[in-house]
């Protein structure tokens, strides 16, 4: 592997360029390298090396200056990122002041500008989409039809799961297909209690352990997971999958990879005669110099909003409104799951039971709404409920009244069992939920700032009401007390599942990408991050991005061999 920050050691021409080193870019780099292509991987942020660059990974709470908290100055400079970060992981998120964007409506854009991107801090949930999801737009006449079905992606889901290592349990559900799993982590007694109640009271619901990219045994010379639940600091044990721990080292091993950090892509360059991309122009974020790199194929994996931004900024005679934007859909149809509504409750019982270790995941109640239609609900699509059961500890019991020895006793001993759960719900693709380039404001590198105009609508709001109601009902039926429903009223972006801004489709007039993630009008450009999503489904999406990436890489190399691109 080579890492370069200047132009002297770096060639100008490669077989492939990959833009972005996050969860899908890492996969693109690895797959293309393994297939023998010389790959230039461009990353706008700094390099982060596995283990070496995880400075907080082994720290105790008392090793931090302000324990878990971040300083007031950090919060003031980072009004968005600070809402999702703590002292242990703040260094893996951008500085909001250095990297501004324009919220036309409130939207939290969490970003990780470094090698590995947000794969370092992701939630590690791995769920397959099903034909219930792939067919939904067509059946309901919403937006456009997905150009693929489950059978097209199924082998690639397995391919990815077997490589990254996913722990989980098979449940034989058509709406949430089973994958290839490592042994599942266990549910605790309160979660088992809730599961039994749910299965007893309904034929179409169950509770299962989350399917997560945390290794329950050694895998691909990584792991196993040590059950510290500090994943977002980076794991020195390689206990979970990230680009840094897995795909990038594998790509390096081939000898075909060059990484260029500090390289923000300004535009994709078009070869007007061949109607293909010839390469990219980047700006070195330190020297602010421009460089051009050329390749036979370009994979864009800069993350949904940034990918659309790069393409919109790539203007030419052929593409006056942005690269590949004949349809006018580029930047539109932005989606993010909502995860603000749910319920919590306490349970009097199991007082003699506890657990040991910090399981790095919770549970999942797979989608049970609108599986067949005709349920008489006032919303379409559905949600997966995610949650966790635990005994109250000091972070919960601190609200107890009083002070002194009795208070201390309450604080330092396990309290009652509680369950917290919320629905991760599908968001429909609305044409006017969109990003665009700002014509007046530029960033430090002279690139236009991105406007984000996004809101949840009636269908999402009605679904949130149902999530709270159904969550409370399940808790109540299982004998929980002090049940409270909630809706945190979080803005878009908070679930960090933004997607849809360069959607796949069958018709070049209404979509940006075809069924192989190629730009309709420039077949050597592939987009395989979240921007390709035609609908959001309700599953955490990273596994799907990885599977689509591996599939598109396989296709791209075949097409190269055939001389088609």
């Amino acid at each position, binding site marked *: 592997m080579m890492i370069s920050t200047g132009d002297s050691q770096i060639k100008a021409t490669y077989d492939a360029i990959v833009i972005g080193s996050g969860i899908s870019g890492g996969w693109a780099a690895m797959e293309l390298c393994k297939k023998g292509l010389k790959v230039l991987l461009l990353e706008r942020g700094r390099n982060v090396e596995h283990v070496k660059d995880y400075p907080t990974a082994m720290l*105790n*709470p*008392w090793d931090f200056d*302000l*324990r*878990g*908290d971040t300083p*007031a100055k950090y919060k003031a400079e980072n009004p968005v990122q600070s809402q*999702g*970060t*703590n002292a242990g*992981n703040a260094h893996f998120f951008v500085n909001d002041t250095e990297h501004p964007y324009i919220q036309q409506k409130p939207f939290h854009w969490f970003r990780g500008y470094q090698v590995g991107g947000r794969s370092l801090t992701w*939630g590690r949930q791995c769920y397959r989409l099903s034909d219930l999801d792939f067919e939904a737009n067509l059946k309901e006449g919403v937006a456009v039809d997905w150009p693929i079905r489950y059978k097209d992606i199924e082998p690639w889901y397995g391919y990815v799961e077997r490589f990254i290592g996913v722990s989980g349990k098979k449940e034989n559900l058509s709406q949430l297909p089973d994958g290839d799993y490592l042994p599942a*982590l*266990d549910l*605790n*007694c309160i979660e088992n209690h809730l599961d039994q109640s749910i299965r007893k009271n309904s034929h179409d619901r169950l509770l299962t352990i989350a399917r997560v990219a945390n290794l329950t045994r050694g895998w691909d010379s990584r792991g196993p997971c*040590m*059950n*510290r*639940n500090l994943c*977002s600091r980076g794991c020195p044990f390689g206990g979970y999958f990230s680009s840094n721990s897995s795909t990038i080292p594998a790509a390096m091993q081939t000898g075909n990879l060059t990484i260029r950090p500090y390289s923000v892509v300004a535009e994709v360059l078009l070869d007007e005669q061949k109607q293909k991309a010839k390469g990219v122009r980047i700006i070195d974020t330190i020297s602010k110099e421009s460089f051009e790199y050329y390749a036979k194929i370009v994979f864009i994996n800069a993350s949904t909003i940034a990918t659309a931004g790069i393409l919109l900024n790539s203007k030419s005679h052929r593409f006056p409104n942005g690269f590949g934007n004949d349809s006018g859909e580029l930047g539109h149809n932005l989606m993010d799951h909502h*995860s603000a509504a749910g319920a*919590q409750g306490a349970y009097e019982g199991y007082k*003699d*039971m*506890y*657990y*040991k*270790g*910090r*399981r790095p*995941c919770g549970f999942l109640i797979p989608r049970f709404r609108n599986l067949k239609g005709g349920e008489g609900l006032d919303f379409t699509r559905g949600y997966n409920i*995610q949650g*966790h059961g635990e005994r*109250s*500890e*000091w*972070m*919960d*019991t*601190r609200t107890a*009244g*009083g*002070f*002194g*020895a009795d*208070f*201390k*006793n309450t*604080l*330092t001993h*396990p309290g009652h069992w509680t369950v917290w759960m919320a629905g991760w719900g599908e968001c429909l693709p609305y044409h006017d939920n969109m990003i665009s380039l700002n014509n007046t404001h530029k960033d430090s590198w002279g690139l236009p700032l991105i406007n984000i105009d996004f809101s949840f609508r009636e269908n999402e709001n009605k679904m949130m009401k149902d999530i709270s109601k159904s969550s409370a009902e399940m808790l109540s039926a299982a004998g929980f007390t002090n049940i*409270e429903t*909630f809706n*945190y*009223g979080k803005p878009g972006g*908070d*679930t*960090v599942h933004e997607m849809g801004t360069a959607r796949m489709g069958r018709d070049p007039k209404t979509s940006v990408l075809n069924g192989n993630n190629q730009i309709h009008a420039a077949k050597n450009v592939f987009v395989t991050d979240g921007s390709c999503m035609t609908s959001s489904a309700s599953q955490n999406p990273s596994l799907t991005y990885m599977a689509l990436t591996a599939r598109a890489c396989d296709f791209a190399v075949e097409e190269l061999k055939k001389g088609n691109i």
Partner: protein
Amino acid sequence: MIKMNVIFRHLNIIFTITYPLFVNRKKAIQSLLAITAVGVSSVSVYECAGTGKPVSIEALPQKKQLLAELAETIIPRTDTPGAKDAKVEEFIIKMIKEIDPKTQRNFLAGLGSLEKYTIDKYDHPFTDCTAEQKNAVMKHFESKAVYSIGILNKISNKLLGTPFFTQLKDLTVEGYCTSQLGATQGMAYDYIPVKFNALVPLQKNQKAWATK
């Protein structure tokens, strides 16, 4: 982004309680404003009297011993270390500098009025109080900070910042529970659990885990 971090999640849970009670909000704010008006006027009386002034942020480190005694009253040494053993006062001083301006103002004002209240009542500073006297002073300030109607606390904290006692208790708890002594002796701390065991019978005098 489930469990992205624990603090984030717990902040959310605080908001939680506010939402379902939204209907009562207007009424609650009205009663709160009435209470506030009384509170504000009584503060200005203190200031005119020239005593019980707010402690300045620069002078806060000089109140270390007082803060240590206050924290110890909240989490005393028992068969396990207390707040003073864990040097919670140092954490409080550090955190008050980092806290939102309203809450910082409340804290510094509260600390000043606690000093005055103690001297007026007992003729000696808090640090010289007997255990009973310390408890009585704390009870007084707890009653000033906490409304019996839960929703009022939430709205009050949002409008006026967290009250003195609430903030003192919060920082004491956090400082103690995230300290090495508090986490490893006051509670149970598992640095590298290795395995997750979902079902463990509770041991006699089982301590709660210090981290989630």
